[in-house]
């Protein structure tokens, strides 16, 4: 049993510590003795290589870098990525990446950038003078069947904790939101939704990075990827999570959300 993680444009799309998601997935495999490889999916990568990965991670980007990515992710490469996600390859896409997966992104300045059109959502920047959405972000994951599966893994309501920092606002159409905002702005600061969930792709504005402090999401991604790959039910061995619990508890207390500290976090 082994896992290959495809990392979208590591040099262009990893502005806010999103590399932590890759590190987290990689280590949680290694700590379980599951062989793991991380494959950078960048401008030199052929579409055939994208087809081989079991799990996909994409991070945030500055506007200029995002444009370079959008220009590169065309044709066969775009088609392969689209197909994979439609077939249920799990992935976690942060900030700029969901904008990339939606219909389009309208930056503060310049032309609308077309996305892959995979997620039924659009993203718009309200203008250079509009305030960015910045701060700690806490949300409950409500998308199904993800929420039920996470609950089974975590033993409690899946509350995700992260940090958001985005100028663009995202508006969902038919795609399911990933969750509902408890603290912070989420997709647009208006409708209380955060992120989107499509097949097994998790799209979110939550940096932090997302996975180390929410290890149940990391384990869900690994489990789902392995189940898809080997077409059999997988039980991951339990890992010790006490530092993640402590970090979660400290943040929830700090935000005055003491009531959300679960029995899990107390361990």
């Amino acid at each position, binding site marked *: 049993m082994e896992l290959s993680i495809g990392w979208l444009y590591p040099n262009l799309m990893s502005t*806010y510590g999103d590399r932590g998601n890759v590190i987290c997935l990689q*280590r949680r495999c290694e700590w379980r003795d599951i062989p793991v490889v991380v494959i950078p999916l960048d401008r030199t990568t052929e579409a055939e290589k994208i087809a081989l990965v079991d799990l996909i991670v994409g991070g945030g980007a500055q506007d200029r870098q995002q444009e*370079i990515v959008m220009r590169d992710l065309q044709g066969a490469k775009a088609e392969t990525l689209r197909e994979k996600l439609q077939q249920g390859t799990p992935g976690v896409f942060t900030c700029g990446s969901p904008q990339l997966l939606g219909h389009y992104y309208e930056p503060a300045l310049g032309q609308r950038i077309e996305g892959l059109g995979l997620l039924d959502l659009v993203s718009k920047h309200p203008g250079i003078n509009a305030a960015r959405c910045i701060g700690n972000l806490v949300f409950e994951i409500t998308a199904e069947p993800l929420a039920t599966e996470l609950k089974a893994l975590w033993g409690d309501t899946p509350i995700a904790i992260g940090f958001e*920092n985005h100028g663009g606002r995202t508006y969902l159409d038919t795609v399911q939101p990933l969750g509902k905002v408890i603290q912070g702005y989420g997709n647009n600061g208006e409708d209380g939704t955060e992120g989107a969930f499509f097949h097994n792709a998790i799209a979110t504005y939550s940096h932090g*990075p997302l996975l*180390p402090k929410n290890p149940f999401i990391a384990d869900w991604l690994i489990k789902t990827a392995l189940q898809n790959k080997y077409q059999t039910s997988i039980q991951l061995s339990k890992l010790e999570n006490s530092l993640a619990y402590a970090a979660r508890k*400290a943040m929830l207390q700090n935000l005055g959300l003491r009531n959300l500290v679960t029995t899990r976090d107390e361990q």
Partner: protein
Amino acid sequence: MKISDRVRLSIAVGIAKIVTNIVRSLKLGAASVLPGSISRRLHPRLLSLLFEQIKQGVILVVGTNGKTTTSLLLKTILENQGYKVTHNASGANLINGLTAALLADADITGKLDSDYAILEVDENVLPLVLKDCQPKYILGLNLFRDQLDRYGEVDTIAQRWGNAIATLPESTTIVLNADDPTLAYLGQNLKQRVIFFGLNEPELYLEAIPHAVDSIYCPSCGHLLDYQGVYLSHLGDYKCPSCGFAKSETAINSQEWSQILIGVYNKYNTIAAGLLALEIGIEKELIFDAIKNFKAAFGRAEELTIDNKHIRILLSKNPVGMNETIRAVKDIQQQGKASVTLLVLNDRIPDGTDVSWIWDTDTEQLVQQGGTLIVSGDRTYDMALRLQYSGEELEESARPFQLIIEEDLSSAINKALSLTSVEETLHILPTYSAMLEVREILVGRKIL
């Protein structure tokens, strides 16, 4: 100066000085910001009236990392020559901090008799300062990713610098880091006199470009830059294979220069201050003397001895800065002169409220080196988690390093000191506000 200006200036300065005395006598801090804020309300042209009086000229030092150390070295070089220098020594580098520094050296009527003002300026504030000030020199050190929760992106900042500098007279001298593509490009497009410093020491090249890098793309055409070698982050010897953009020629040969403190980043700080001092007309030998005898600014590779234990504080406030301090600490550990490192992570406004940047640093290097790692600060557990994920083994017994978690900073420092032997140096890697706290605990006095 008009009489009316003189009178109003005098009132503003007088009140600012009273505020300073109150703040200091109540031991509220060193009064490095508040007097500036109050007096600027009393006199909106205050800053430019103060700037105009500096006899030889104003030197502004900008960049993400190294401002405080570089300014201090330059100040030392100038003071050794007998010049009187005004300087924002406390590192308060927003408008109110600059105003307070100038006020501190003015007499009660607002008169200043400094030869030079060396002011470190926050990278985001430079355009604002240039509205009130016509500096004689601007020294641009580098632009890295720092506090993106507060600031824009590196490209945007460089563009805003360029626009602001374009309004200055052509007699202004701009000293820039040629090894930083963003700054080299900026300099190549200015009409002012521009001179460059940079390294030409391939033996200092890193093995690979670190992850925490922003500008590996050509600022002119967007093509991937071709690096012959990297000194730190994206600073190196490069050219663009597409449009021909390349590192500018440097005005000095870095190989002839020794350096202050430790780490490659301080070599940059040394040659930056050195080149500007040469430009002012100070003899090389005299500059070399100042380099040899230099003492660190607070928290910047500053060394202290407490209870017979040797301590070095290495401010680590962003991925590039922290990667470089880790590189320096690792070097010292390999020589067997250190084994305990204390990391203090805060998330207050001066630190940036987003701590995700710690995942862009290569803490794996520190963990591989082994020894004892102690974590503390507002975000103790976030740092602990980062270190846990830096290790190949999850089992504590299988790790090459010992991880100690101590939320209370005083206890963490005591623990770190007790684990450090008298032959070794304890390294403390704090964020900005954490550095002030660490120093307060160690020295028993507030700086800001």
